[in-house]
């Protein structure tokens, strides 16, 4: 603001009080250029859209998302449903595959990355050199090359033996992939998990009490041990007592019928109210941040723009809900009802079995070839390749992040800890890592995002993640644009979720300053 205004002032001084022409007024230039820029961008988009419209009409392709309800002509390689009825269901299976891959990948990559990162700083020469070689090798080779290389290497492994039946081991590797024991949720899992949750809540309170007692008296009170103990007791009792919670399903049934009773109008109203409320809240907080003891500070045009923009966003949401996609509200109602019915179904009198079941891998004849049976947790060739590919690659980056974070802790901290006589492990656990964690967290979240996005490379080796399934769908239906939009929304939602979670921890970890 200030400088253009100042420049204008100087100009007006030199020309003895005559105002500059209107097209050189700073505010006019500023807003005119923006409006012109916006119009140009909109025109460009309009041009592209009209071209696409023409081309699609010329090729006789209709746009729209109807294809989600039509049948898909082919099976999927793996997932919760390998023979989906519709394209929409197929895409959902792909999304679930991507999400599972991402979550499992994040877990393993974090563990491996932290170990390697700490190992790189080890005083043990061979440990630190091995870790360095791990990092420098993996992060300098493109992930795609690594994934394909792992895929090819797995293909060159020995075949599955012909004899069938359980494999007497925990791990089986062959050219089909990797098979490990499967731990799966059993009959009474959801009833049992209520016990565990109650135990965790209670244990948390016990832990806080023990911690307080430790702080007050200095006695060793084992807070973590007490938490574990309480949870273990509840889990053990619940393991046998869980059938008593069979009635919980009725509650969810009631919620489901409650959701079903809603009308689309109410849902639209609720969403609109939320949008308006959010905008109002934002504006209120914005104004509050501009309020000084002397009253509201002078708002510049940029501030007004923000306020107007918040209002426009709320209006856009309302327009989208009511006019843009009126079916949204009934979709929300239907899927909400289905969700609660599914949950209600997880409880009941018939559910008396063990909450968790475990199976060991086996081999069965599938057509002419022996293959892994459904008992074990089978990472088929493509899944194993993309999983270990993204895990190793991301672990190398996480290792660098962790190393950087630890090095960022001032040396005085570890010296002080040594002076207090802490052991090296205690020092690492209680002094170095908590401080390093603050530095590590934001780039770590970045790496999680990268891992999630990198799972899309599965397309190169044919694992049915959302991109690969999407490709199958648009090859069959020709709806490229729609499929790409679904991809983008899905990945944006994933990115947003990860950012929100990381930010939550980031805010909690931040040093409270004054």
């Amino acid at each position, binding site marked *: 603001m200030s400088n253009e205004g100042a*420049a204008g002032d*100087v100009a007006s001084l030199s020309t003895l009080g005559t105002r500059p022409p209107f097209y*050189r007024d700073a505010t006019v230039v500023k807003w005119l250029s923006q409006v012109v820029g916006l119009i140009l961008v909109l025109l460009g988009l309009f041009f592209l859209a009209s071209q696409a419209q023409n081309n699609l009409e010329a090729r006789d392709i209709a746009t729209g998302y109807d294809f989600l309800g039509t049948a898909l002509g082919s099976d999927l390689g793996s997932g919760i449903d390998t023979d989906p009825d519709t394209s929409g269901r197929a895409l959902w299976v792909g999304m679930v595959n991507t999400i599972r891959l991402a979550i499992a990948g994040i877990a393993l990559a974090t563990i491996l990355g932290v170990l390697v990162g700490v190992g790189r700083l080890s005083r*043990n020469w061979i440990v630190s050199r091995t870790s360095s070689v791990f990092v420098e090798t993996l992060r300098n080779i493109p992930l795609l*090359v690594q994934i394909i290389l792992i895929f090819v290497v797995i293909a060159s492994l020995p075949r599955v033996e012909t004899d069938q039946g359980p494999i007497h081991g925990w791990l089986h590797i062959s050219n089909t992939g990797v098979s490990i024991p499967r731990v799966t949720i059993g009959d009474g899992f959801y009833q049992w998990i209520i016990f565990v949750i109650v135990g965790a809540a209670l244990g948390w309170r016990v832990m806080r009490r023990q911690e307080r007692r430790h702080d007050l008296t200095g006695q060793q009170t084992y807070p973590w041990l007490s938490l574990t103990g309480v949870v273990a007791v509840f889990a053990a009792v619940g393991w046998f007592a869980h059938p008593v919670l069979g009635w919980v399903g009725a509650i969810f049934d009631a919620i489901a019928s409650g959701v079903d009773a809603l009308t689309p109008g109410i849902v639209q109203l609720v969403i609109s109210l939320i949008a308006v409320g959010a905008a109002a809240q934002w504006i209120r907080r914005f104004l509050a941040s501009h309020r000084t003891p002397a009253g509201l500070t002078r708002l510049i045009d940029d501030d007004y723009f923000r306020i107007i923009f918040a209002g426009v966003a709320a209006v856009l949401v309302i327009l989208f809900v009511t006019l843009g996609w009126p079916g949204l509200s009934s979709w929300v109602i239907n899927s909400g009802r289905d969700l609660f019915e599914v949950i209600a179904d997880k409880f009941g009198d018939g559910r008396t079995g063990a909450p968790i079941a475990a199976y060991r891998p086996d081999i069965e004849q599938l057509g002419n070839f022996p293959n892994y049976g459904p008992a074990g947790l089978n990472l088929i060739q493509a899944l194993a390749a993309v999983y270990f590919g993204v895990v190793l690659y991301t672990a190398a980056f996480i290792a660098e992040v962790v190393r950087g974070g630890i090095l960022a802790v001032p040396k005085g901290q570890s010296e002080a800890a040594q002076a207090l006589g802490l052991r090296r492990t205690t020092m690492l656990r209680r002094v170095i890592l908590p401080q390093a964690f603050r530095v590590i967290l934001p780039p770590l979240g970045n790496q999680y995002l990268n891992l999630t996005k990198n799972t899309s490379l599965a397309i*190169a080796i044919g694992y049915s993640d959302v991109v690969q399934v999407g490709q199958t769908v648009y090859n069959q239906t020709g709806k490229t644009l729609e499929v790409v939009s679904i991809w983008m929304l899905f990945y944006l939602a994933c990115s947003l979720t990860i950012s929100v979670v990381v930010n939550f921890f980031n805010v909690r970890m931040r040093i409270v300053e004054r």
Partner: protein
Amino acid sequence: MDDGDGVGAPVIGDKPAIERVATRPAEETHRSSAEWIRKNLFPNPFNSFLTVAFGIFVLVSARGLLNFVFSEERGWDAVRTNLRLIFTHAYPEEQYVRVWVCVGVVVALACLSLGLFASEGEGLRLRKISNALNATAVAIALGVVLREPSVLIGADGETVRDADGVVRQSFAEAMADRWAWWLAAAVLAVVALAVRRVPKRSDGSPAAVPTLDFAIGAMALPVLSTWVYPWGHYAFADGEFIAEPGRTVAMSTKVPWTVMWVLAVASLIVGRWVRAQVDERALSRLRAVVAFTWLVVPFVLYWVVLRDPDLDWDRIFTVDAPLALAFGIGGGAVLWWLTADGRGELGRIGAIALLGFAAFHWVAAFMGWYPMLQKVRISFLLLAVMALLAHNFSGEAAKRRRLVLAWLVITTVFHYFATVMNTPSTVETPTEALIGGFAVTLVVAVFTLMLSFPLGVVLALARTSRLPIFRVMSTAYIEVVRGVPLITILIFFVVILPLFLPANMEISLFASATLGYTLFSAAYLAENVRGGLQSIRRGQYEASDAVGLSTVQRTVFIVLPQSLRASIPPLVGQVIATFKETSLLAIIGVFDILRMANSVIPAQTQFLGIKREGLLFVSLVYWVFSYMLSKQSQRLERRLGVGER
């Protein structure tokens, strides 16, 4: 794909270097090897256990790798025979000299720049070289012992087998059989000893050689080795390797590489000589010229040298040249008039009128009112942009001349390339693309970076600007692009972009892929540049306001130079990331180096199904390039002292 390179780098690069510098002298003075081993490998029981466990792990892995690489069953011939395919795909044999010209120009320019720019550091200490040689010798000896004995090959050329499987040599036989490796290890050890014996310099500092000289000198070894050893044959002809009778690399490969080496040495010497001759002022001008050459060279090499346009001289003399001349002279005159003294408001109105005039042609094209050459429309637009900038150059004759000169250069370059790009090529390749293999990887990476850098800077400026609509648009663009995987964007550009184009317009796979990479990379670059922009202190803005700079002047002369310097480390990280991301070209159907190894070579009848060797080679190529880049970026970071201020 991974901006982590950039995010982590600044913290990671610096710290250990500082610590190492600080602790080295004290350690080196009293360190016997027994003491070193006890301190670094067996300080306490837990670490002793770790040492043993990791030692076994390392030895087993090394043995596995050696057994794999040197196994008699490995199809390394698949890689050796297809080297040309891997690096340039099907660029025609008879025009291959064009590829060598490109390599030569890049090598010469690189060494010339090194001669002109590179500062002489303390050099590489001979002691360090000796240590490295010793380590290599030990590694070779260890490898020779570790690798399992070779299988026996019978008189019929087949592997000898008995009831238990393949028959192998005895251990002693294997060791004797590998005499060449023992010899190499021994020679290295002797050389290392000799190097260590070189006395200290007269001033007492340890003996050292300049790093650059050493590196270029070391390059001579692989180049010379092509004259005695058949590293790679570059083609099959009627089932025969094209190679020298003496079983070395073919003449058409070893001669060019030798020439390249000589060229490198010569241009380094020339660069240094010139640097010694000229004064500071001339040197900085010379450097600017070299930097500008770097910007133009990729385009010249690709469109002029590699593509060899089949120029239609009639058309050039009747249409293209007159057009360029008209724009050069006419535009120059307009700019001269605009910058004259006392032009004032009239100049601004004229510039805006020119912009409207230029924009009108685009609207006309949009509506299809009248035909016009595309390059005329672009020329008008360029002129309008120059006219808008003109008031910054008004006043003195020297400044005005500079603006007109810049316009002449821009017109010439633009019209030249527009003509060349619109001319059909004489080079006939079986695929749509001009070149493939590793070359296409490099070409896409270079064009992506050159195009996405300005875009990224603009996006970053928009995101940090005080113009809210631009800020919202830029933020939305950056966040959306950063939130989705690269492959979806590439598929978007390759599959859907043709839908968005007018019916008479076509876009090649290469162009649409480069466009996708550019728009993707620009979002990440923008975030890196934004980091630099935020590091500029408020005082810099206030000071430039105080001396009366306009917004454009402040941005170009004050803000950008400082912020770009601050964001060099993450920018280099982004360069590495982009280079690695080019491997995704294989997915969208470009015949790049990965596709060669994964699909093309395994489909050849001689090498059916041989994938692992090719993929390992591709990994090695990528690794060497990325590793060198990341090491250079760490050096650059230390030299610039970013993060220490």
